[in-house]
């Protein structure tokens, strides 16, 4: 929806520029008439056009908000997101999905991308994350530690081991020497969290940022000595048709690291 709104704004601004016939007011960083006619590769022109960002599902809320801010800061641009598990997105890119930026929830999938030479720029770390126990508001089952997750009758869901959040959850439980029998291994972190939000599961292990941005669950911290801290890297892609906007987006996110920390519960990179 927002994409089309932005698109119509772009079209409208083109028409205004065309009507002005060369008398660009330069009040905003829009391009000159010459660039409208196709020669956009001048160094003075601001980035414009649309990009597609493939991002880990844990970034759904924060990136959607940052996307609106980016579009406001750079009129004439539009950012479309596709959120999913990092491994899913990495496969999509390998299979030639037309995208401009990849933001991964872990290093491993970014490494795979780099190994396949699908990245145009070196990956930049923009945030860190760690795991937390997500529980129903009010903690009716009185879960205080990882060991409490082993209680019989407690419905625990985890991400599947094939996606980053599940791999990290396995590590954390192994570190704490706790053996939890999950009722389900979900396909991505959002699906895992949803089960707790719906009240169908009592507890889940997700990222702190998911608990912070959910608003419907309560978090119980996992001690740092057993927790896993993950680094989230982002890179522009060789398949990008709009590298100037893609790079502007990466720079924009790096400049708003503190927002990710204060508003969305991530850790500083």
């Amino acid at each position: 929806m927002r994409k089309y709104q932005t698109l119509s704004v772009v079209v409208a601004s083109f028409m205004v520029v065309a009507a002005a016939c060369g008398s660009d007011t330069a009040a905003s960083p829009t391009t000159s008439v010459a660039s409208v006619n196709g020669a956009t590769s001048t160094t003075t022109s601001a980035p414009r056009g649309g990009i597609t960002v493939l991002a880990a599902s844990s970034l759904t809320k924060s990136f959607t908000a940052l996307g609106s801010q980016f579009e406001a800061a750079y009129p004439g641009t539009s950012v479309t997101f596709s959120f999913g598990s990092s491994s899913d997105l990495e496969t999509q890119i390998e299979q030639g999905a037309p995208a401009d930026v990849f933001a991964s929830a872990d290093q491993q999938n970014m490494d795979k991308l780099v190994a396949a030479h699908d990245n145009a720029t070196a990956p930049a770390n923009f945030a860190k994350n760690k795991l937390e126990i997500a529980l129903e508001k009010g903690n009716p089952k009185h879960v205080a530690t990882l060991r409490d997750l082993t209680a019989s009758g407690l419905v625990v869901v985890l991400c599947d081991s094939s996606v980053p959040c599940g791999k990290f959850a396995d590590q954390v439980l192994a570190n704490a020497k706790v053996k939890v029998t999950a009722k389900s291994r979900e396909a991505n972190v959002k699906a895992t969290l949803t089960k707790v939000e719906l009240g169908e599961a009592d507890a889940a292990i997700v990222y702190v940022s998911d608990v912070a941005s959910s608003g419907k669950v309560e978090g119980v911290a996992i001690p740092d000595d057993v927790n896993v801290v993950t680094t989230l890297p982002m890179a522009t892609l060789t398949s990008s048709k709009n590298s100037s906007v893609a790079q502007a987006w990466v720079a924009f996110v790096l400049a708003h690291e503190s927002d990710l920390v204060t508003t969305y519960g991530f850790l500083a990179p």
Partner: protein
Amino acid sequence: MTGPRRRQGSGNAPPLVAIVVGIVGLCAFFVLPLAGLLWRAPWSDVGTVLGDAQARDALRLSLVCSLSATALSVLFGLPIAWLIARVQFWGRGVVRALALLPLVLPPVVGGIALFFAFGRRGLIGQWLDRWFDIQLPFTIWAAIIAETFVAMPFFVITVEGALRGLDTRYEDAAATYGAKRWTVMRRVTLPMIGPSILAGMALTWARALGEFGATITFAGNFPGKTQTLPLAIYLAFENNEPAGIVLSLVLLVISIGVLAAVGSRVLGARARTPALAQ
């Protein structure tokens, strides 16, 4: 304009254009995707993948759940189809639309809807939980319910069409000779729509076998408990594992085999029907 000429005896061969377009469609939508899978299939890994306990569990669960879902669809779908096709009542159009709703509903939404009905906090589910200590989500029952929910419309729509197209004079005649309603149904109606019931069952089973969205949402994904073959395939692809392709081929071989067997039988039975009717 002269009326269309009817040729007798030479069959009803479609015009050349239709044949060409048909072949192109067949290649583009059926043959090529399948060929792509076969092309990328890691043939040397087939043995290892099929020997894997988790894969065999998924296959077993898929068969159990899809066959159970088919049985439930027949049990409930037949009366539903009968009701919609034969009983005149106010709001019949709405009921028909309702019965076909899962066809248009995205399966994931179906899964969430099943939570709202049968989940721990659901309309019915909360009482099941409180009174009988029954929790359906994340169990094999949830997988069967999800598959039934998604697949039953295929049975209803097939059988309803057959019932509506049926010449009621045979049933009327049987009733005239004093047959009770139950006898008419058993001895006249069901045999006459038999091929459609079989076709409906095949479609329903195939849809249930491939069901993914509603199952992973409502039943979750746990190897050996609720992880059916489509779920195992999806998660294998997460890791870009060649196992995913092998498992997909297993699913394809089973379904094509059964559908081809049932299909030829249904077609054969259909071809015989006019002769029986005379």
